[in-house]
């Protein structure tokens, strides 16, 4: 038997026939592709490239995942049989296969059962498109589960990407116009807002806390900025004032929640509530319309975030580029700078981080301050997008920021994850929202589905250890 267990399965005699079958299948798929290509009179070079690509991909998928899956479980069951001192048998192998893949089999079972039930109850459900969608989902489920075993640290990122790809394919099959330019642009704009709002939440989560003041800060800055502009303050100065206020409130959050780290989320909730109340009181003084602010949004702010915004002549709103720049800076910074590494050190283990002279207090204040800044920035940009101040504009972000962090795979226990993961989470959420809206689901059903979605996602990567192991 080979030394490396990862390569062992591919050399065992069990799988040799499987590999031949795979070769034949790959050749068949490539041949069909080539046939279609020539039938459509595509240029010969394209057809050759595509055929080679299809062949390689099919062979890789088959050998790398399907064969390995079968072989690994066969190997495991044989090892179990040897331990028990019995002869390996087909029945035992089957049992071993079933017990090693409970999750996948349960998922497949639910999928098939759901499909059968739906096609029996809903007339017109059993179409080729739906059948294909179900098959695609099943294949994606099996592939994701098997393939994710090969990943260690970045497993959640891989699963997130697979979920993103799956939803994207399913959505583009089922929703008309999903792949159109305007739709993708609008998805990206919303993803940029959510991504910017989630910057602070991700950093706070890496440190092991939660910030629930984000939605209130977004709403407050949205209303407050328009109010300041309405007072006649030049708009760039107004934006700076709002951002400074956000930094101050974020710092206050950190200051107040540092002594009570277990209850950081309740402290921030209280601060958020007070901020939103105070902002509304200040903006309503002398106005008969409480809670509403009317005014003219400056053109440069609208251009920054509105759907028809233009960046240096390109018809894409600058907010998308801002988000991309922030994301690259954060991903790079968390990975390669001392600050980023210290943040992970603190999130992973407070005591050992303090032993190497990392100031817990400073980092705690820092991440909450950044959170305050990013929330107010999002609020200001949202003003440019909507063109009117509204205190409730931040409300969806209460759970969206949290869900994006969690779905991406940043552990809420601290010390693991990062902004790259969050970007995946944001995109998954946004594509899912667009899909659910596209198939005509109402808001309350969307909310219900998000609620049910968060739990299994967290269960995938943020399970606490059993109490037994903590003694």
């Amino acid at each position, binding site marked *: 038997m080979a030394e490396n267990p990862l390569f062992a399965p591919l050399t065992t005699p069990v799988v040799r026939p499987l590999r031949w079958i795979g070769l034949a299948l790959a050749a068949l798929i490539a041949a069909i592709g080539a046939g279609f290509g020539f039938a459509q009179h595509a240029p010969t070079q394209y057809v050759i490239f595509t055929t080679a690509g299809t062949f390689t991909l099919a062979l890789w998928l088959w050998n790398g995942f399907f064969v390995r899956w079968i072989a690994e479980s066969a190997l495991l069951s044989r090892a179990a049989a040897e331990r028990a001192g019995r002869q390996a048998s087909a029945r035992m192998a089957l049992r071993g296969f079933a017990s090693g893949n409970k999750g996948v089999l349960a998922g497949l079972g639910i999928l098939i059962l759901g499909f059968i039930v739906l096609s029996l109850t809903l007339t017109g459900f059993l179409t080729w498109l739906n059948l294909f969608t179900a098959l695609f989902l099943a294949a994606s489920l099996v592939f994701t589960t098997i393939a994710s075993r090969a990943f260690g640290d970045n497993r959640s990122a891989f699963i997130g990407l697979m979920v993103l790809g799956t939803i994207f394919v399913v959505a583009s099959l089922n929703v008309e116009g999903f792949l159109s330019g305007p739709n993708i642009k609008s998805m990206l704009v919303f993803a940029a807002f959510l991504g910017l709002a989630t910057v602070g939440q991700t950093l706070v989560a890496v440190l092991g806390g*939660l910030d629930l003041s984000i939605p209130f800060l977004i709403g407050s800055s949205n209303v407050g900025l328009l109010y300041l502009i309405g007072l006649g303050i030049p708009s760039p100065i107004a934006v700076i004032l709002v951002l400074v206020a956000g930094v101050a409130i974020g710092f206050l959050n950190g200051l*107040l929640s540092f*002594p*009570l780290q*277990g*209850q950081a*989320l*309740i*402290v921030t*909730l*209280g*601060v*958020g*509530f*007070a*901020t*939103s*109340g*105070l902002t*509304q*009181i200040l903006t*309503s*003084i002398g*106005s*008969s*319309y*409480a*809670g509403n602010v009317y005014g003219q949004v400056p053109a440069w702010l609208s251009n920054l975030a509105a759907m028809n915004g233009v960046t240096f002549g390109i018809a894409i709103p600058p907010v998308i580029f801002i988000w991309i720049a922030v994301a690259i800076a954060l991903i790079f910074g968390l990975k390669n700078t001392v600050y980023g590494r210290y943040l992970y050190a603190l999130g992973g283990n407070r005591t050992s981080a303090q032993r190497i002279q990392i100031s817990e207090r400073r980092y705690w204040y820092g991440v909450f301050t950044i959170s305050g800044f990013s929330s107010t920035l999002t609020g200001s940009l949202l003003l440019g997008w909507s063109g009117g101040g509204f205190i409730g504009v931040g409300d969806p972000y209460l*759970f969206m920021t*949290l869900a994006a962090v*969690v779905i991406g795979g940043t552990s*809420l*226990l601290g010390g693991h994850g990062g902004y790259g993961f969050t970007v995946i989470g944001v995109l998954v959420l946004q594509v899912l929202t667009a899909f659910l809206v596209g198939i005509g689901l*109402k*808001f*309350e*059903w*969307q*909310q*219900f*589905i*998000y*609620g*049910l979605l*968060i*739990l299994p996602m*967290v*269960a995938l990567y*943020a*399970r*606490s*250890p*059993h*109490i*037994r192991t*903590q*003694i």
Partner: protein
Amino acid sequence: MSSAVSTARGTSYNTFLLVPILLFFGLMTVAVLRSPSLVTSSGIGSAEIVVAPLILSTYALMATALAGRATVDLSIGPLIGFINVTMIQLHAAGIISSPIAVFAYSLFAGVVYQIVFGLIVIWVRVQPIIVSLSGYLALSGINLVILPRPGGAAPDWMSGWGSGTTIFSPSIIMVAVATLGWLIFSATPFYGHLRLMGSDERAAYTSGVRIGVVRIGAHVVCGLFAGLASLSFTGLISSGDPTQGTTYTLISVTALVLGGTSLAGGRATVFGSLLGALNLFLIGYVLSTFDFGAVQGFVTDLCYGLILVLSLLMTVALPYLQRWLRNVSPFIVFVVLGLLFTGVALHATYDYTALSPHAGAPPAPVADQAAGNQDDAAAPQRPPMNPEIFAPVLEQVQEGPDFARTLLSTRTSQLAVLLLAIVIALRLLVWQASQRRLTPLLYAAIGVGGVLGVWLLMNTTALVARLGHGH
């Protein structure tokens, strides 16, 4: 020596109750001075039906907060709403209508939800806060699906619950039963296990406590309280409302924290939670007596947020407070402030003009309604009327301002208060006598002062009348 140690421990454990007690009497004083109708029969009646769901949902949170792991069930509000809307819909469908069925249904629904919650926390080992967020989203979505807009009708036998004309409404009976139930529950060994698990789960596990069972037990208690809260909420609005229940999340978390419950687990008292909920109601009540115009709601938001943060910070300051205030018993503070407050309430609601002989003919409606009492005042020689002794103390008076006067001028209540004051004073003297400090003297002085105060209150009628005659 041993008694001193035990006393010190006994008093310092409850020091955190000082804050809610002080706040309670402060708010009560302001409320009564600004709006004396609060302490009339109908004032108390309408206040208690509003405050009952809040008290019960705070109790529900208390049960799980005690279990540790920062189990703050943020989904309590949507859960109340969920039971409310499903109950209304089931009633509309004619499935449940009798009181037994409605009670059984709402308690059952609350318990089932909470058991599922607990099982997820135990088996999937996801942080409770994530489970509760997930439940918040899912339930608030599904509530809108079940009942898209407020409507429907509560069962007929429930329709009188929301009128709030009497003190002994079903809501207050539920609160009383819940409070009593919790007091009995806290005498069981199970409660001891629960507190042990909340303050140190590992210690509980290693000393053989079956932590899974205990956690489920805490959730069952929480579910029962949630069911009761939903019943009193339904009684309050007499219909179904998919969104209003959700607002209970933030205020009951605030009430919980205000009542001195530690969100880290292991420390909670029913008295504290009760006071916390009452304080929160009083804050809203006091604010509503001021006229803030259009920003009324925002001022309330601001105050709730500030009080949430401040009371959380109090838990940080608690160790320092305990060092300074070790010899102050919250119980005595409560009694002393209670007596002071009675004086204030009496002052606020006393009808001085009716007593003064210079006023000639007293203001008509009050004097006519309580003619017997006016006669007493005018002619101090005559003893109080006999029938008053047999009449129910509170139900007799329908008109507002002279409730307190009637309460204190009936002989039964005078005797009861006097007896209570003497018993408390004696009890405190005996309790403190073993310590060689000055505190017994202080307590003796307070006790004598209390007795003197009661005597004065008893004879106010006569005194005032005599002073009036003296002029």
